[in-house]
């Protein structure tokens, strides 16, 4: 709060000291030009001060600003629209242009930063405005996209501050490679990787300890972008749209346009937001039984013991654990310039205290961009530079995380007494069990098993537009992006998740990314005759991305070594303070000391030097003092030929040639075509528009193929370290394939767009069908007789088809009241069409979170299946019951027992405007799709699930006995009565398939914002001022028994389909309330 006050004062001071230039007679008028019939901004509209040579054009968002002297008139003109004159009286004007011939005037930014009129496009694109994103107040802008784009699925991994998110467009196509789209900022490809925890034994980049992408979370790097810098986002969903971007965009592309200076006069924008967060969603637990088995008490976390004695004191540990999360954002933007050179400088400060103790996230953003025009607009250059710094204090997730510990912690014990105040030791809940032998108290866990990550990133980009001739334009986009990321992941020697002999573990890493790419295009346009327009574009693209990494893992934190040898200090940390060499520090306190004391003695004790030297593992090249690195390079040449007839039939053909470093020489060059057609029926048959019902009708189709590349180096079987005596090398797990060729993905798309009732209702319907053939299946198992464990082949195929409907409806349109609604409907169907012969199941090991359920795939099954163990059944499908115990028997084979893909999803966006008030609400509906509730399985096995509430009710499990007759015509019906309370194996052996919840629906209020726009001149000097209150994730209506079905078991660093729909010890998104103001001067 104090910081905010300081900032406020500083701002006030600036206002007072504003240069007098601003108060000159000549003033700047700015405004927005929109198309009247569909309320979309018009770009390229000419605004001229009548009788002068002062002319400007609107930008991609229909915005302009121009200098006007009192009494002058502005003339607004645009091809296809009626010209209007306006006499500006205030600083801002809004103009709606009436169409002259009902042609839509919208502009979208497509591949290669090319602005196109949507009527030309033979494929579907959807645009989200920066304002919509900013109004959600979400620091990771990806999290604001769910429900706003049909066919976009957001995969938010958890509610931990600094956690990663992923976006999937039109479902999963690739089984073992990335399904994430390409991110392009101002025409420059920008990195969105998430640190992958798996280094395959040091053979690639990752943690030296090889973790499975679920232990800790790492930000997905596109989230480094300051949401306030986003002008707009265009989502290119199909590969048709991205045929020009090449293989890395085979899962679609997200095109981000940043905000540029709107004026060369000084303009300041400031906004802030203060957030409060609370955990409200929580898996229900049964809290009535003490530890034990079969009703007999014992010192155990398993709650099948006797019921609590009356009057037992219970503690509300959940309340003691979570805190109210807070966050604060300040954004400052400055526009200024000199003549034809305009600058924009923006800065942002975001700081967050998560709902989990010791989980904090901070981000600093700075960005400067410039637009300069030379030679009467013949040449334009757009350089920019951005600097980002983030700091994240992390806690662990999933198995090993705090949540399972918190769930299983007996409420008869107060979690706040988690350590011995004198010794700093972890408190033993059950005396006599070694500290490592029992679950970590959640508070102890977040205080002692911790992680940290710091990042600093610089991105540079340069755009050049050169129009030497009327018919020819050249453009270039050059981008360089680099960051340094370093962090650690620490497990305390007394933690349940390490053995006492391990003496604690520490992973340290440093990751350095450098990416350069450029795209150069030349476009020639020609009109032939009166009706034909031709356009020819050619270009080339070069990409070079390199990620370097140092990582070291060690165990036996130096001081616990001393503890281990000392019988009294078994497993305790920091028994005797030692230096990095393990030598006892003279005068060190010979007792267990606190972290703080230790850091004064040892300095940065999260440095790898605190581990026992002989235990250290490093990445392969690190041992020679060199970083491991992964590099990919690609060159591409592409062309596009477009013909349009009378501006109502558009034909487009593209072709792209690529050469990529991940492939073997013989298969390295490949190419693919794309074609599309768009027909404006309403223009061809003008009679359709009679009666003012239909104003616009377009049909479109496109066909394209694209490629998807293998992981770098997956063509070479390599030798990894032998860690047994004698060292040297041994062949690794991977039978990497020297004959790989790119996956071929082909898609066709059909669509139509309609505008009805003077634009009050518009619809866009798209059907797509994607076949991905010759998929590169990485890491599938075969007989070890191959000499390997995991194999790689071009062998799989998937089919993915879907229907997307975007419906816009202007419900009410009055002078003071307006209500717009948008529906984004999405239905997808996916199927694994082929897998390598004889491979009965393919799975991504990271998704195997808990017991026997994983994201396994089988031929002809869905791409999003869950394979798991289940109850064994006979030929007639009856459950087979153990004849001795009366408990069902388990079929441990992983079979498809669930499909995570929903029947459909629908985003429902409402925006209301009443006088100066605006209310926006985004609802998100999901119908169908299964979830594996691992948390409930964990709770059931521990006697804590509500499912075990009727444990004393005697029952006979429906089924047949396994007495040899089970598969005959006359199986023996089970009549054995069991009372689970006395036979808790009934719960503890319950197979994973029983925890797959079917057809999980949700209807959630993702974001809701109420904004009040203060009247003009409410405060002098303020061009505009508004205040807002925004809620995130406020309402969740679901039939799911767990906390929140929208979680992911892995981080965004995983591959393939990943672990969405796997709920195991993951914290769901808390609810948030944000308050703030937004001002422009």
């Amino acid at each position, binding site marked *: 709060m104090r910081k905010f006050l300081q900032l406020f004062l500083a701002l006030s001071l600036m206002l007072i000291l504003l240069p007098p230039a601003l108060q000159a007679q000549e003033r700047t008028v700015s405004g927005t030009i929109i198309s009247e019939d569909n309320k979309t901004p018009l770009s390229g509209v000419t605004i001229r001060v009548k009788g002068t040579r002062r002319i400007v054009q609107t930008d991609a968002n229909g915005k302009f600003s121009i200098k006007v002297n009192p009494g002058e008139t502005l003339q607004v003109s645009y091809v296809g629209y009626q010209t209007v004159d306006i006499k500006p009286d205030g600083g801002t004007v809004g103009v709606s242009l009436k169409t002259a011939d009902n042609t839509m005037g919208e502009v979208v930014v497509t591949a290669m930063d090319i602005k196109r009129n949507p009527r030309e496009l033979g494929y579907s694109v959807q645009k989200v405005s920066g304002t919509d994103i900013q109004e959600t107040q979400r620091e990771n802008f990806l999290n604001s996209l769910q429900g706003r784009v049909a066919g976009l699925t957001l995969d938010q991994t958890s509610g931990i501050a600094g956690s990663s998110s992923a976006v999937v467009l039109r479902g999963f196509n690739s089984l073992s490679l990335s399904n994430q789209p390409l991110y392009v900022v101002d025409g420059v490809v920008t990195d969105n990787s998430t640190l992958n925890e798996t280094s395959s034994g040091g053979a690639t980049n990752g943690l030296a300890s090889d973790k499975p992408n679920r232990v800790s979370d790492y930000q997905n790097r596109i989230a480094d972008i300051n949401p306030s810098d986003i002008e707009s986002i265009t989502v290119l969903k199909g590969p048709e749209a991205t045929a020009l971007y090449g293989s890395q965009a085979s899962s679609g592309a997200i095109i981000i346009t940043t905000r540029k200076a709107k004026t060369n006069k000084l303009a300041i924008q400031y906004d802030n937001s203060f957030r409060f967060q609370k955990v409200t969603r929580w898996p229900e637990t049964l809290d009535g039984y003490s530890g034990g088995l079969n009703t007999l008490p014992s010192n155990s976390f398993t709650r099948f013991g006797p019921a609590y004695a009356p009057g037992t004191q219970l503690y509300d540990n959940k309340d003691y654990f979570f805190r109210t999360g807070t966050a604060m954002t300040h954004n400052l933007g400055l526009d200024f310039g000199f003549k034809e050179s305009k600058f924009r400088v923006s800065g942002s400060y975001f700081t967050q205290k998560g709902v989990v103790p010791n989980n904090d996230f901070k981000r600093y953003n700075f960005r400067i961009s410039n637009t300069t025009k030379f030679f009467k607009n013949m040449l334009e250059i757009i350089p920019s530079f951005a600097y980002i710094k983030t700091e994240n204090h992390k806690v662990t997730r999933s198995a090993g995380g705090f949540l399972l510990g918190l769930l299983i912690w007996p409420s008869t014990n107060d979690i706040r007494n988690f350590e011995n105040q004198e010794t700093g030791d972890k408190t033993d809940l059950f005396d006599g069990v070694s500290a490592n032998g029992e679950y970590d108290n959640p508070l102890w866990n977040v205080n002692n098993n911790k992680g940290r990550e710091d990042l600093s990133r610089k991105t540079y980009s340069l755009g050049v537009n050169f129009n030497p001739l009327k018919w020819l334009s050249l453009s270039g986009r050059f981008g360089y992006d680099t960051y340094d990321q370093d962090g650690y992941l620490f497990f305390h020697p007394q933690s349940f998740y390490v053995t006492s002999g391990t003496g604690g573990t520490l992973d340290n890493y440093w990751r350095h990314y450098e990416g350069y790419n450029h795209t150069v295009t030349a476009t020639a346009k020609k009109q032939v005759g009166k009706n034909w327009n031709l356009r020819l574009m050619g270009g080339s693209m070069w990409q070079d991305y390199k990620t370097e990494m140092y990582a070291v893992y060690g165990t036996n934190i130096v001081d616990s070594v001393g503890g281990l040898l000392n019988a009294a200090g078994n497993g305790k940390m920091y028994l005797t303070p030692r230096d990095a060499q393990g030598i006892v520090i003279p005068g060190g306190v010979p007792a267990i000391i606190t972290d703080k004391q230790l850091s004064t003695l040892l300095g940065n004790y999260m440095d790898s030097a605190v581990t026992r030297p002989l235990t250290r593992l490093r990445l392969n090249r690190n041992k020679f003092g060199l970083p491991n690195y992964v590099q990919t390079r690609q060159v591409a040449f592409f062309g596009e030929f477009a013909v349009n007839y009378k501006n109502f039939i558009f034909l487009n053909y593209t072709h792209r040639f690529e050469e990529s470093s991940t492939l073997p020489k013989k298969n390295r060059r490949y190419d693919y075509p794309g074609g599309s057609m768009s027909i404006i029926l309403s223009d061809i048959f003008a009679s359709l528009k009679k009666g003012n019902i239909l104003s616009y009708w377009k049909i479109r189709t496109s066909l394209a193929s694209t490629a998807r590349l293998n992981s770098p180096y997956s063509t070479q079987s*390599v*030798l990894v370290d032998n860690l047994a005596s004698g060292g040297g090398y041994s062949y690794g797990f991977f039978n990497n394939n020297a004959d790989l060729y790119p996956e071929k993905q082909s898609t066709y798309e059909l669509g139509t767009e309609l505008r009805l009732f003077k634009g009050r209702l518009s619809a866009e319907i798209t059907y797509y069908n994607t076949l991905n053939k010759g998929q590169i299946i990485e890491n599938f198992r075969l007989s070890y*007789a191959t000499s390997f464990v995991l194999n790689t082949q071009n062998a799989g195929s998937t089919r993915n088809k879907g229907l997307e409907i975007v419906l816009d409806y202007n419900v009410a349109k009055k002078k003071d009241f307006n209500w717009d609604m948008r529906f984004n409907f999405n239905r997808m169907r996916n199927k694994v069409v082929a897998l390598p012969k004889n491979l009965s199941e393919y799975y991504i090991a990271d998704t195997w979170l808990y017991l026997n359920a994983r994201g396994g795939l089988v031929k002809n099954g869905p791409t999003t299946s869950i394979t798991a163990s289940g109850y064994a059944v006979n030929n007639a499908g009856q459950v087979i019951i153990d004849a001795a115990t009366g408990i069902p028997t388990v079929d441990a084979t992983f079979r498809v027992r669930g499909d995570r893909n929903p029947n459909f999803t629908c985003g429902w966006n409402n925006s209301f405007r009443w006088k100066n008030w605006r209310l926006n609400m985004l609802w998100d509906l999901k119908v169908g799709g299964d979830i594996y509730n691992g948390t409930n399985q964990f709770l059931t096995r521990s006697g804590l699930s509500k499912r075990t509430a009727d444990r004393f009710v005697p029952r006979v499990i429906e089924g047949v006995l396994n007495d040899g007759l089970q598969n005959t015509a006359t199986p023996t019906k089970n009549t054995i009565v069991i009372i689970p309370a006395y036979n808790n194996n009934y719960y503890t052996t319950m197979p994973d398939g029983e925890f797959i919840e079917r057809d999980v629906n949700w209807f959630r209020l993702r974001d809701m914002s109420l904004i009040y726009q203060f009247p003009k001149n409410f405060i002098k000097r303020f061009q505009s001022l508004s205040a807002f209150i925004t809620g995130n994730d406020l309402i969740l209506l679901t039939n799911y028994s767990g906390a929140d079905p929208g979680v992911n078991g892995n981080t965004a660093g995983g591959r393939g389909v990943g672990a969405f729909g796997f709920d195991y010890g993951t914290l769901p998104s808390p609810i948030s309330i944000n308050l703030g103001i937004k001002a422009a001067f």
Partner: protein
Amino acid sequence: MKKTFNKITCSVAAAAVLLLSSCSKKIDEAFANPNSLVRQPIETLLPGVIANMAIQHSANGTLYGPQNDGQYIGRFIQNWATNTSLNQYDRMGDNFINNSDVMGSIWAMHYYGMGKNITQIIEWGTEEKKWDYVGVAQAIRAWSWLTLTDVHAEAVILKQAFRPDLLVFKYDEQEEVYEEIKRLCTRAIENLSKTGDGVSAANLALGDQFMNGGDVNKWKKFVYGVMARTYHRITNKAALYQPDSVIYYCDLAMQTNAENTSLKWSNAGGSGTYSYWSPFRGNIGTLRQTKFIADLMRGVNGQFPTGSNDPRAPYIIRENPNGTYRGILPAKGGASAGLLLGDSSNNFWGGLFQSTTAPGSDANCRYVFTNAPIFPIISAAEIQFIKAEALFRKGLKPQALTAYINGINLNFDQLIGDYQTNVPVGMRISPTTRAAYLANPLVVPASASLTLSHIMMQKYVAMYAWGLVETWVDMRRYHYTDLDPVTGNQVYREFAPPNTTSTSGVNDLYPNNSGKLIYRHRPRYNSEYLYNVDELNRVGAFALDYITKEHWFSKP
């Protein structure tokens, strides 16, 4: 206009061609994996292969090898049992119902752990004319084939083995595997006998530091040892068994303990440099010596009823707090019948019976249970016992007796030489105790009284805890409880498989065995059961009692 356009097109095309070729070069530079290489010197491949003869530990894969599967085999042959009751392996069961890879680590050792590493040592060694390396690689592969088929019988992939290009694999017959072993042994001897070219003891020592230290003669003895084992497998096949061949190879194999093939650990690094059974790694906290070995060592087994402790007892098994030697029964744990209070033996790390946690140091550990023991693969004593059995079967009893006595003596020497360190001084073998033991006619009878039981049970003792696969082969040759045709007693006298130990009427044998004893391991689950289903069906490997199916080698 048109000209200009053409000019532009041409220059763009020319520039593109130039650019493309320089780009192609830069792209090619980024192709190869910089972090891990596709080729390393063969000297650096051998250490991993050798370590795998006990237990693998690479950055990609650990725990493959006989020390892991041996935990279970040791229970079948009652070297040890579990400290708690009704352990499924004590009961000669497996973990098939849980889709487990347990008992599949020798499979992983052979095909993956050693697989391509050996193939490449042979291939690259041949290119580099390092015949000693080629010979060593062939020798280890021969041993590995034998170990594999000893455990998995005919359900092994021979002809199509080590083919990264195949998706499915055919199983071959055990007899064919033996032929391959013999072929490989012959090739190994040829290569180990070569000199010149790239052959160099100093260079071989680089990769062979933890086995034979670069001594090709010792490798040759190892090869002959493998041959002796192979020829001796088929004692039950009267028509095929050739005792002369066995004796021939025994005489070429290791004759002294100095010639033993033994693995060592550097004990100076990560856990991979420590034995799998070491206290450092803490894997065998639940294993306890059995009544069978304890009774043998304290002189109460009917075969050697000396009534006093074998001088070797403190070397290989553990005393209890009462200072005596007792053991547990399989599947009975600490509640084994006849165990008096305080008689429960210490664990293999010297801790109390109840303790399953590993001590911080191996100062009180003995034999092959220290952090970095000498771990025999084939010993000279073993060879003498093989020879004794072959001679006995040939009817040459006096010569058999000589070999038998040699075997016992070699075992005494081996224990004194390699395993004396942590044996308390007062408990060590003295020339007196040793002489007294050997002079006892109950141990060393007159040649006419020598029986198969004498030979097999002394062999059992001499190979205790390390010769697990070999002892299991022996016991299966005698179907665990075959009777000695001369004495009418069991060859393994008083050896009681789990089903017959029952006193309460409960059958201790694993229920899925259908009342039969274990004879084999299944092919590794995650290698075969999901990916080689047709072949598994052909050999019947989906049957719950598949593990009870007898091998070709032990059938008549």
